[in-house]
């Protein structure tokens, strides 16, 4: 989760909404990403989408069974859909997103996916909050 947070900080530096994500298999990072919606001019370029894409490229296959995704912010509905398709085993997220997070809508992940939330929640939330506070100035 520290690594995911560090990725989020890179996004922050690049004036992107600070979210970072990584995919881990057997203790090894096989895919990572941070939010790049501004630079790539692509509103779908969320951290999770890039991490999943990189991981499946690494594995050379469609599914991320036995893998875990760590992300600093609760995934949105699109990324939850992406996680469903990737059949990921575990999802760990830091801060909850009470507006856009997938748990606010009746969207389900793959039945095999276990969800753990609130990891380093304070740090993850503080980063996003300070980003938006700075923007509003």
């Amino acid at each position, binding site marked *: 989760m520290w690594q995911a947070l560090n990725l989020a900080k890179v996004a922050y530096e690049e004036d992107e909404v600070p979210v970072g994500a990584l995919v881990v298999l057997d203790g090894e990072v096989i895919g990572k990403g941070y939010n*790049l919606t501004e*630079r*790539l*001019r*692509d*509103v*779908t*370029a969320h951290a999770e*989408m*890039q991490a*999943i*894409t990189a991981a*499946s*490229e690494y594995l*050379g*296959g*469609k*599914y*991320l069974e036995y893998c875990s995704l760590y992300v600093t912010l609760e995934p*949105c*509905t*699109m*990324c*939850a*859909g*992406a996680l*469903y*398709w*990737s059949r990921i085993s575990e999802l760990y997220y830091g801060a909850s997103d009470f*507006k856009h997070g997938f748990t*606010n*809508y*009746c*969207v389900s992940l793959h039945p095999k996916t276990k969800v753990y939330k609130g990891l380093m929640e304070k740090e993850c939330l503080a980063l996003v909050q300070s980003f938006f506070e700075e923007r509003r100035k």
Partner: protein
Amino acid sequence: MRTGRLQVQAVLADKFIKNVDTCNVFVANISDKKQTSRIMRQLSELCPLEELQHLKRVRASKEKDVPLQVVVHKPLDPDSDQAVLEAVKNIEGMGKPYLLKVPASPPLTRRQYNEAIKYWPVNFHEDKEIASMVSGNYFTEAEHLDIEQYMGMALKLANIGKAKGQIPIGAVIVNPVSKKVIAEAYDLRQAGYPLQHAVMVAVDLVAHSQGGGMWNFDETFNGLKFLEVNSMDSSQSSCEYLCTGYDLYVTQEPCVMCSMALVHSRIGRVFYGASHPGGALGSSYKVHCQQGFNHHFLVFKGCLQEQTDRLYDNR
């Protein structure tokens, strides 16, 4: 309604489709018609209609010796009900209130209106746009031809994908004002990219057309196209979202991920052919009109459905 091979059908929010729901309210009889306006005045002071604005306050009674019935109060909790009933007790010329079933919310379509007035007279302001979607007369003949043409392109792309061992889903993104095709895509998930559904590829190609994009596509997947930036029409300004004002044509109903990507990219309208049990634009969810999302869009299904359904015969 148009018949034949093109039968485009709007996928409306549940509120337009649902049956009329009812609630109990206190009503009372008025035996002398001449007293009505005074009673109404007193009632509107003591207990305004509030969330029952859609109800007409008075109706002609069906019973012989009682000319009129009036809505008094919507029950809240025993204590406040008691207080209201106590307060209206002294209104002259009005009988003792009793409970009656009335429509709980305003009707949004003519069908709901006709159903609602069986319970109690209601106000109805017909939304012309919704009405034409319900009746199937929303599009002009020329628009039907355009829809058919673009869905035909999506079908061709689905078959290109199929020939390359992919799931046969094709997607086309069009600027309906300039009639320029912005992106042509097909599904790539069987190529080892779990997220590269046809719609996601199409949206990413739009980002490519604007000098961005998340994915680099393998050259073996020819047929994927996007309009180059220099030929972009000026109607799309850079401050707008990815797909603002654009239409998507896709052979099969998009999934949750793809539908949400369309919300994020602010698509204008979506046309699809075949429905899918897990689909998120009508079948399992209605992402395009989900409350709480920051963008909503119109969805039409059944475009060239005979042909699109044939792509998924073996499912």
